[in-house]
């Protein structure tokens, strides 16, 4: 903690400053959305904006994807390390490499703009965003065949993209030359540059008004405040040690168990997540680096605790992460790792949630289904390259106390932060035709609060090209139930040649050359919270009427007999006996 006690600060000014910095971050996000060209930015919000102090500690990231949060500091500190003494006003840095430059994975490019007041470096204004294409072995950034990071696209160490206000044309050309979609890349980088420019101006104004010395002290005070909030939240949990784990069943090439294990120790107002026992790094691209592992832990912890604890790095001071080198949570170069923001990020979250659920069952978060969908890419009949993420095949979310799981939602590590596009917009933009997109039945993990159902998604991809498979949720259930709640159903993916109707092989991972394709996807479902017999019988009735729970399941799983006309609850008699034996959560 800072040596100056909080009582020396004006508490009103701290409150105002916190809001001002969040406001800047949100404003940067708005600029990104409105100026970017690729749908990954503008539609799916796959980016984050953050502000740091002069030491690189993140002080505000109000606009951000949860899985980006918590790793920005590694990138800014890489700039401080590589350019010590050579950071000038009007410079902008760019980086991506998870081994060399504090990146999380190669497709996420981070732009970092130092902020100066009266000639003194007072902080950084940055954003991190997923690019449409960065070269490498597959269009669209995800090369499922990669066995080394060299197969995954261009690697960016810390580079000066703009030097004292001058864009480095040579570097710019190099970046564009290494992308299959240089026009999208150019537009999106432009959006990122513009967003950091405005954020930096505003941060400089605020600190300038306070004066450098006082301004810096107040930025630190915000970190101290974050630390106090986190310590307080941790100290409300019981001290002790709990274990959690999650298992993935492929290394991207063969079916094999890959385990993420964590031991959580809570000691007063501190917490340690120790990943000893996690599987060695794997051949495929589901390895995590240290920055991404920090993000995944942070994501699990923040989602578990009170949502208004500020998301700054002060909160990290009382959370220790031990990630043994050479494992999937801290792989050594040159292991491939593009998939890491999804897998093993979700496995890490699940392991942490599993341990945390034991510490405080009331707060337990049931698992979200792992997604089975992939990415189609190719040439549009009208010319031009397309990269089509099948977001409509997204899985159901897990339940928590007080609400059912979301029916279908972006990956767990975004906590629903990426929006699913409208089908109409997609059909206007891509060579595709959707036949079916609606909720599944008898899939959401049964519970007092039910898991999200997942969807049936049936689509024709009307142009040939490549199809990337990366399904995780297709072979076994993945959305864990908690506190007596059941697991969500597994998903499936089937592919057919659109012309002949012939079924095609769907390996667990890989990139297939394909003709126009007919895909039939069952999205996996989320887990339930609490025993199904504790579910409000009227909620069960509604589920039956809605067709998301069958009458049979209502009776057998939920202990609710539905009347013959299907419109009322006939009986809940079968519940009595089993309820007594149910471990009831207080």
């Amino acid at each position: 903690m800072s040596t100056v006690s909080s009582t020396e600060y004006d508490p009103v000014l701290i409150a105002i400053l916190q809001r001002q910095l969040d406001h800047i971050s949100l404003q940067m996000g708005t600029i990104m959305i409105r100026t970017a060209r690729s749908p990954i930015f503008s539609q799916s919000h796959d980016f984050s904006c953050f502000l740091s102090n002069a030491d690189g500690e993140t002080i505000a990231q109000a606009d951000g994807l949860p899985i980006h949060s918590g790793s920005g500091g590694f990138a800014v500190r890489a700039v401080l390390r590589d350019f010590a003494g050579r950071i000038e006003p009007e410079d902008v840095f760019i980086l991506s490499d998870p081994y060399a430059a504090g990146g999380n994975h190669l497709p996420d490019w981070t732009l970092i703009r130092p902020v100066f007041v009266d000639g003194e470096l007072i902080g950084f204004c940055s954003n991190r965003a997923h690019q449409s294409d960065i070269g490498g072995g597959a269009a669209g950034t995800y090369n499922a065949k990669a066995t080394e990071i060299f197969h995954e696209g261009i690697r960016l160490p810390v580079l000066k993209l703009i030097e004292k206000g001058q864009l480095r044309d040579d570097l710019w050309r190099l970046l564009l030359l290494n992308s299959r979609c240089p026009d999208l890349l150019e537009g999106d980088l432009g959006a990122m540059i513009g967003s950091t420019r405005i954020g930096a101006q505003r941060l400089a104004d605020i600190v300038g008004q306070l004066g450098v010395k006082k301004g810096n002290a107040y930025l630190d005070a915000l970190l101290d405040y974050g630390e106090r909030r986190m310590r307080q939240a941790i100290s409300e949990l019981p001290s002790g040690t709990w274990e959690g784990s999650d298992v993935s069943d492929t290394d991207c090439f063969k079916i094999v168990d890959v385990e993420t294990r964590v031991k959580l120790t809570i000691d007063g107002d501190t917490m340690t997540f120790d990943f000893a026992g996690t599987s060695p790094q794997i051949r495929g691209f589901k390895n995590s680096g240290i920055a991404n592992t920090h993000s995944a832990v942070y994501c699990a912890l923040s989602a578990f605790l009170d949502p208004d604890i500020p998301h700054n790095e002060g909160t990290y001071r009382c959370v220790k992460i031990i990630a043994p080198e050479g494992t999937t949570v801290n792989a050594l170069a040159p292991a491939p790792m593009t998939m890491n923001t999804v897998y093993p990020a979700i496995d890490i979250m699940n392991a942490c949630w599993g341990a945390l659920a034991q510490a405080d069952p009331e707060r337990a978060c049931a698992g979200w289904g792992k997604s089975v969908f992939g990415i189609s890419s190719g040439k549009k009949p009208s010319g031009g390259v397309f990269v089509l993420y099948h977001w409509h095949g997204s899985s159901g979310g897990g339940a928590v106390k007080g609400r059912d799981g979301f029916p279908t939602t972006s990956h767990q590590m975004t906590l629903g932060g990426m929006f699913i596009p409208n089908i109409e917009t997609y059909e206007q933009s891509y060579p595709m035709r959707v036949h079916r997109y609606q909720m599944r039945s008898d899939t959401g993990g049964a519970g007092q609060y039910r898991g999200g159902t997942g969807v049936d998604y049936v689509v024709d991809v009307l142009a040939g090209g490549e199809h990337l498979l990366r399904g995780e949720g297709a072979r076994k259930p993945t959305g864990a139930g908690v506190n007596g709640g059941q697991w969500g159903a597994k998903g499936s993916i089937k592919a057919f040649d659109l012309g002949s109707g012939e079924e095609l092989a769907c390996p667990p991972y890989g990139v297939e050359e394909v003709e126009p394709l007919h895909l039939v996807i069952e999205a996996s479902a989320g887990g339930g919270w609490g025993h199904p017999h504790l579910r409000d019988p009227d909620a069960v009735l509604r589920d039956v009427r809605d067709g998301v729970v069958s009458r049979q399941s209502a009776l057998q799983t939920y202990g609710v007999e539905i009347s013959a006309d299907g419109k009322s609850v006939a009986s809940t008699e079968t519940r009595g006996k089993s309820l007594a034996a149910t471990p009831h959560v207080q």
Partner: protein
Amino acid sequence: MLVSPYRVGVDIGGTFTDLVMVDARGAVRAFKAPSVPSDPTEGVLSAVRLAAETLSIDVGTFLSNTELFVHGSTIATNTLLEKKGAKVGLLVTEGFRDSLEIRRSIRENVWDHRKPFPEVLVPRYLRLPVTERIEHDGTVRIPFDPKSVAAAARVFAEEGVEAVAICFLHSYANPEHERAAKAELKKHLPDVWVTASSEISPTIGEYERTSTTVVNAYVSRRVVPYLESLAARLASLGLPRKLLMIQSNGGAISIDEIGYAPASLVLSGPAAGVGSLKFFGEDTGSEHLISIEVGGTSCDVTLMQHGMVSMTDQIVVDGYHLNIPSVDIYTVGAGGGTIASVDGAGLLKAGPEGAGSTPGPACYGRGGERPTVTDAQLVLGRLKPGPYAGGAITLSLEKAVEAIETHIARPLGLSVTDAAAGIIQLVEQNILHAVERASLEKGYNPRTFTLVAAGGAGPLHGPSTARLLGSPSLYIPRLAGVFCAFGMCNSDLRHDFVRSWLKDLDKTAISGPGQLEGAFEAMQAEALEVLAREGFTGSKAQLRRAYDLRYFGQQWTIAVENSSTDASTIRAAFEQAYQRLFGYVQPSGAIEIVNLRLAAIGKLDALDLAKVPPRVSDPVAHSRRPVWIDKKVGFVDTPVYDGTVLTSHQQLVGPAIIEEATTTLILGMGDKLTMTDASNYHVDIAHGEAA
């Protein structure tokens, strides 16, 4: 003595129903009657009775002398907030039943993932499939099958469905199937209210379009009968002309024309502020205004540039998405009733919780114990303890001090004064951010705008917000407390038309602008017909064309008002707007037209308020009291003026407190007040040393 004919505006709020009338010579009267939430018609009538009584005439005479009766109501919004809408059935394209419930998985705050989505307005068992499918280019892939509608109608009848929404995929490109389904449904369920998405929101994006259509059906049950009964009552009492309603777009429309789109009333109340802004634009001498209207629960920010109010067609009400042309009102939870608190780690917060009208602020003595912004204003001497609003409320200083002491001062180790001042500072920060979002994010520099402070609680925040923004001047209408009701007396009629287009701008040029012109002319024919029905023809019927444009590949459009169909002219207008918003353009970028828009406007004769004879004498304070002015000077013995005796051209230099009938004003150190020609308040803000 007032001279007929009158214009009358009636705005129903949570606590009061405001009525403003303007007579033929431009004399203005304002009235506040208690609202009757259980029977809003009665609320309107009681305001009318109060006005007639005060004028010593009977209600019949009052109404029969009224040439324009304009009404704004939150009934549509309240129906949504209180979940008192119709039992709605939804017809969807087979295979796509759940768009409404999936909601594109849009989470407002991802970190707060425990918060459930708002209740889905149509349960899945009433979202029924229709066999049909239209492609993205409008061609039919699966023909419409009326049998599936008949089957759905049977379920709707059995379930007692009161209103039906229809939304099929790509109906913006081809509405035929929706029309056929509506006709078929009407055959089976002649008494059920039916609305189709292509009628109310024919734009791309099935989730938002479905949601809009469902909300339309949902609110119809309360809104449509209310409008009908109110119109009938007013007519039977003598109102000679049609009742007009303010829509979310800020324009008025007769209830005959609004009947099919009750959802377009969701911003009916606050959008009427536009009429006031337009009016005061002249008196302020500026065409560039930003208004902050602060009431009990929230602050609404609206921006007007070159006399044109900023518009949007995407709004969210209580978590429900609506695509309807609306005044772009940015709302934050910063009102008089906003609650202040300190969290477990010692951070001061203002909002988002509010105390509402019951129990209200602690100082109301109605059981509220938590400190609010109003309590802080009272502690700082800006409001005076004692009876308010004719004795309806009595403000207790002791209760305000106790609440702030207990919940803020002690936990933070501050004096009660510093705690109260901190609350005000924080809430003003929230107002500032709202103003910035409404301006900076749209590429406007707020410093070049005149800030207008309105609403009962707005003027007390005006000077410091203007100072934080760096605005040179502030304007406060004398009618600040009835801002929207007054705006209703100055609202043109307006009806918006939109048509999905989805074509390359440059290819439009190649195929000849005739096609585009033809599309606009078809819309114009319909628009002129509507205006003629409302009694507006010739120069009083105005049409304004606009395009929703974007660079190819982008998902967001920019609305560009332009009457041309020439591609290079449209491109230039788009690039100008784009440059302002985002700071760069793509000189060779392909531009896509997404929608064509047409605003049909029926121009009312301009209001001309009676001029007040100027006076040069110095105003005289009626009392003095200690008032906390700012952080630097703290409490100052401050003169207090009665606003009703201040008149045109008189001047004052702050510090000062001015008490008006519907609001209270403050002037900070050195702020210079000049009463305008129309006897409103213009303040030159003192920048510099004031903290």
